[in-house]
């Protein structure tokens, strides 16, 4: 029930956003289509399976400016969260006995989202924005111990509200830096290790290029 409510809310926000953008009468932006790559740092919020900050992440995205205020786009992002657990003894689940091993818990997330952004200022060097990204997330839950590996693969729905700023770094406005902070909620669950969903805060920094050629 909670998931359905979140989904409905997200769809409503996107529809309102698109409605707003279609009726915009603001001046059109000259450079419309940007491609970007960037680096992501993720702090997981709600699980002890991998609760360490993940420094292995990145994203690629394409952003289309409808006008100076609104943009839409596609984003693919990924991150790996790792946690080392020193040697520990565990009771066997299905027979009498115990097992001692050290292990790595690993969560690898790959999210594919469509996003919309509202940019507060136009024609300035800094253009702060708020946005919402919605899409699908694939998660690989893995446990590495000794020479063995357990793996489970799950798909889920992901919603990601974000705040950030675009920083124009070229005179022709064809190259931007972009920095943003987002909260991510994904429905990917793995009951075997007690994960009902995946939540995290992500800081990302990247660079955008406009590749349109003018004659």
């Amino acid at each position, binding site marked *: 029930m909670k998931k359905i409510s979140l989904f409905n809310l997200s769809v409503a926000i996107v529809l309102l956003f698109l409605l707003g953008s279609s009726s915009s009468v603001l001046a059109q932006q000259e450079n419309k289509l940007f491609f970007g790559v960037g680096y992501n740092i993720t702090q997981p919020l709600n699980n002890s399976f991998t609760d360490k900050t993940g420094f292995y992440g990145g994203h690629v995205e394409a952003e289309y400016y409808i006008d100076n205020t609104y943009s839409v786009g596609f984003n693919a992002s*990924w991150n790996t969260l*790792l946690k080392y657990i020193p040697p520990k003894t565990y009771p066997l689940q299905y027979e009498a006995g115990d*097992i*001692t*091993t050290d292990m790595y818990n*690993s969560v690898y997330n790959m999210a594919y989202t469509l996003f919309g952004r509202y940019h507060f200022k136009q024609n300035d060097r800094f253009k702060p924005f708020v946005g919402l990204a919605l899409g699908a997330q694939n998660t690989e839950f893995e446990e590495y111990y000794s020479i063995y590996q357990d793996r489970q693969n799950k798909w889920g729905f992901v919603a990601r509200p974000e705040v950030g700023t675009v920083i124009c770094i070229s005179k022709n406005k064809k190259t931007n830096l972009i920095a943003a902070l987002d909260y991510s909620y994904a429905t990917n669950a793995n009951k075997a290790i007690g994960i009902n969903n995946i939540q995290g805060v992500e800081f990302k920094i990247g660079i955008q290029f406009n590749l349109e050629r003018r004659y």
Partner: protein
Amino acid sequence: MKQFFLLLAGVLLLLSCKKDPDFNKLDTNLLVQTGYDTTAAFSTYKTYAISDTINFVSNLTSQNYWADNQSTKIINQLKTNMANSHYSLIKKADKPDLAVNITFIKNVQQSISYDPFWYDNLYYGSMYWGYSYPYSYGGFSVSEYKNTALLIEVIDLKNAQTAQKLNVIWNATITGAFDKSTEETLAMILRAIDTSFKQSSYLKTN
């Protein structure tokens, strides 16, 4: 257009960035699994016997025993732990209550694959069983997988006549990325034997 291709190359490079754990760190500790017969009364056994060699099972050689300085150290480590559990070592001819059996398994398999797009071998991340020493020639890569394990079994001789069979009342399986060739791995094995007894507090007598 040049910019675009640079960007595309960057994207492809970044897309391959799934971070693997530090496998070398995992290699420094062996996995120790123990199991026991819940009906066995461990305190009723007093004596045991152990062979002075280790059974050796491998697809590399027909030799079926392991007897050298390393195997002696492993057997001595077991004797020490059995003594700490208050079991007395006697000769097989003196009819011990228990027999301790040690087996070392080492199987090696090789696989050859070809991938023209990967000149460096990146197969470390795709293993599930065994560990490997990958090497490559151009797009060809040869992976060597080793399955190694040290098995320890404690067998009930005391009740063998009554039960009409030899019951294994305790066993330990030690697995990991190890061989029987270096002092470092020997130290890991000896540490793992200690762990197997430490996690089996019921394995003792008065």
